[in-house]
């Protein structure tokens, strides 16, 4: 009897590290072959990349111990055998990468804006935050504060957007584009599904037109044509014009993403809401949209990441974003030829932001799945 009660352990080969390895990496012979191949590639690649990016790289001083002020002083240009990456260019140009040409005496304003951005995102990202309600109030007024902080006014010296650059422009374009496109996109999606022919036609036209042209065209449109549509004498800021173009572009895509979510909601939900006597807006706000947006999270994040990366196109209309500053640096005769370092750094910064966004979307999906339980799951 005793022997019967004894809990028998599962076979060694299916548990623990060995089991995991067997199931995931060496399940059958093709699997094993691929695993070995990948390990070989990593073995070849990782030491080289680590050596290039870290161990033989110059950060501020070259191997002679001199502080690097131009590309000729980089170890790899002094002695090709001796050097890896020359990060000194990033070190020297860090200010420009992060703030562009923002005046140094006023830069604290940008720093505060960066900090406040993090603070404003906090209640959106983390729903268990204590006093979340008050933080949310802050989030709503943050764009206004940021506008005055960055641009000037209310006692701050004005800093023309022509002096903005680098990460600052990338974040302003990305955040504003994403934040504005979301509500506009919802309205467009609802409009396109509306039963009123004028509204639905206008929304459809708008969406199809904007989606039908490349972002570059819209940027040119914003830069070159938009001033024509304004009354004479009104001078519209270059960055604002680009922002308008980016927002229009993103809203059209966002609308289609959300419409996809709306279409996945079973008609029963609409009927149930209507049978309770809800108005159109109450039905959408309380019943339909929360479910539709929940379904649409992955594509919403997808297009947002797309937009964040597409902001680099603004260089075509002469605005120096993070990538633009990188290219400007490459044109400085002191730093000719350091394109690997600069592009590596720029892509790293972009990766940090986009990876953060995609991890957040995963977290959101997990969290919301455990929330309401709905038929469509």
């Amino acid at each position: 009897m005793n022997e019967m009660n004894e809990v028998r352990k599962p076979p060694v080969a299916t548990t623990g590290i060995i089991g995991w390895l067997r199931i995931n990496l060496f399940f059958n012979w093709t699997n094993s072959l691929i695993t070995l191949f990948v390990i070989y590639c990593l073995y070849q690649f990782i030491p080289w990349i680590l050596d290039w990016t870290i161990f033989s790289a110059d950060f501020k001083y070259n191997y002679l111990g001199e502080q690097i002020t131009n590309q000729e002083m980089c170890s790899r240009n002094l002695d090709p055998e001796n050097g890896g990456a020359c990060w000194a260019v990033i070190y020297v140009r860090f200010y420009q990468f992060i703030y562009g040409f923002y005046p140094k005496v006023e830069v604290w304003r940008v720093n505060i804006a960066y900090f406040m951005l993090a603070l404003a995102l906090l209640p959106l990202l983390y729903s268990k935050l204590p006093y979340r309600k008050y933080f949310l109030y802050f989030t709503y007024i943050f764009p206004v504060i940021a506008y005055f902080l960055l641009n000037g006014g209310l006692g701050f010296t004005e800093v023309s957007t022509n002096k903005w650059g680098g990460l600052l422009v990338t974040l302003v374009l990305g955040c504003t584009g994403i934040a504005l496109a979301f509500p506009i996109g919802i309205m467009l999606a609802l409009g396109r599904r509306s039963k009123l022919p004028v509204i639905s036609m206008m929304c459809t036209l708008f969406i199809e037109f904007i989606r039908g042209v490349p972002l570059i065209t819209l940027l040119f449109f914003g830069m070159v044509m938009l001033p024509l549509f304004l009354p004479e004498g009104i001078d519209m800021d270059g960055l604002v014009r680009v922002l308008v173009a980016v927002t229009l572009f993103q809203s059209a895509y966002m609308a289609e993403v959300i419409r996809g979510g709306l279409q996945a909601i079973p008609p029963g939900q609409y009927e149930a809401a209507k049978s309770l006597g809800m108005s159109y807006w109450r039905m959408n706000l309380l019943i339909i949209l929360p479910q539709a947006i929940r379904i649409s999270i992955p594509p919403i994040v997808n297009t947002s990441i797309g937009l964040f990366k597409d902001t680099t196109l603004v260089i075509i209309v002469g605005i120096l974003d993070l990538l633009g500053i990188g290219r400007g640096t490459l044109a400085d005769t002191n730093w000719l030829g350091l394109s690997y370092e600069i592009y590596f750094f720029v892509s790293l910064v972009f990766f940090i932001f986009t990876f953060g966004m995609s991890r957040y979307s995963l977290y959101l999906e997990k969290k919301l799945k455990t929330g309401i339980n709905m038929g469509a799951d």
Partner: protein
Amino acid sequence: MHKSIIWINLYIWYREAIFEKRYLNNYLNGENNMKKLLSIFAVLAFAFSANAGTLDDVKNRGFLKCGVTTGLAGFAAPDDNGEWAGLDADMCRAVAVAVFGDRSKVEFITTTGKSRFPTLASGEVDMLARNTTWTISRDVNLGFEFVGVNFYDGQGFMVPSALGVSSATELDGATVCIQTGTTTELNLADFFRLNGISYEALPIETNDEGKENLFAGRCDVYTTDASGLSSTRAAASNPDKWKVLPEIISKEPLGPLVRHGDHQWGDVVRWSLNAMIIAEELGVTSENVDAQMSSNVPEVLRLLGVEGNYGEMLELSNDWAYQIIKQIGNYSESYEANVGPDTPLEIARGLNALWTQGGILYAPPFR
């Protein structure tokens, strides 16, 4: 009145764009596409320029708006402190000095090959100093006025030394990296057609892209202005591995330009450039300019504003040229500091030497 013309223009342009699917062609061929748009702007710019001269606008604003590249080695690029430096940047600063007597009274607006002309036409910048080639169509048809040449460039070819080619006529069947939307693209097609040889184009957007493609062997030849080739070669880890072929297949006179129709402003920009060239001719430099104030050469005295009232004619202060030379330097100083043999670009004076020294740099007399 003006507005209605604009709208009619817009409508025509829009219809053509839709029906001829012109959009794609326009996008691929940056310059032609802008003509219609610019005709609209010419009207608009005219409507505005009728109100006040650019010089007055600049003076009232308190600073000059100058269009430069987003970054081109030696011509305009931000330095480590975020200050724009280069031959074209100096040109902008010289005009700012002429108007305000202060080299910092200038705002640099970055423009690309595609956005430069609309930006100037719409009045967003007062002038362009953006390594722009002076051609008849740009001067006449686009409604701009080139006021001079601050760099004589020409299109050349760079190949790997290992390719064993000594002349561009031997490049039959080569893959050529070529920047789209520029005059170089058209020159290249002309040159190959003239010599009865074929090539395969690898379109690129920036100089940097061309460099990477050439170094990686994706194209056999990189063609752009000789100044661009110099910076590309300077950026190579081993410059000797690359060779610039002797053929210069085009004239590329690069110079500052302004909008049509405002001659007073055109004169200010033209003579800011000429003053730098004349200063080199006369041997006036930023270092000896104060001593030259008591020179016995009449033209020096006229240039520095000791004699005559040339500043007044331009509606500038009488020491405008003195200030340019004092704060920016003469042409030679600007050249040597930005692109000359002592910089990594190592571009010899060549055509850009004074006419008295074997080049073609020549300014009308200062009298």
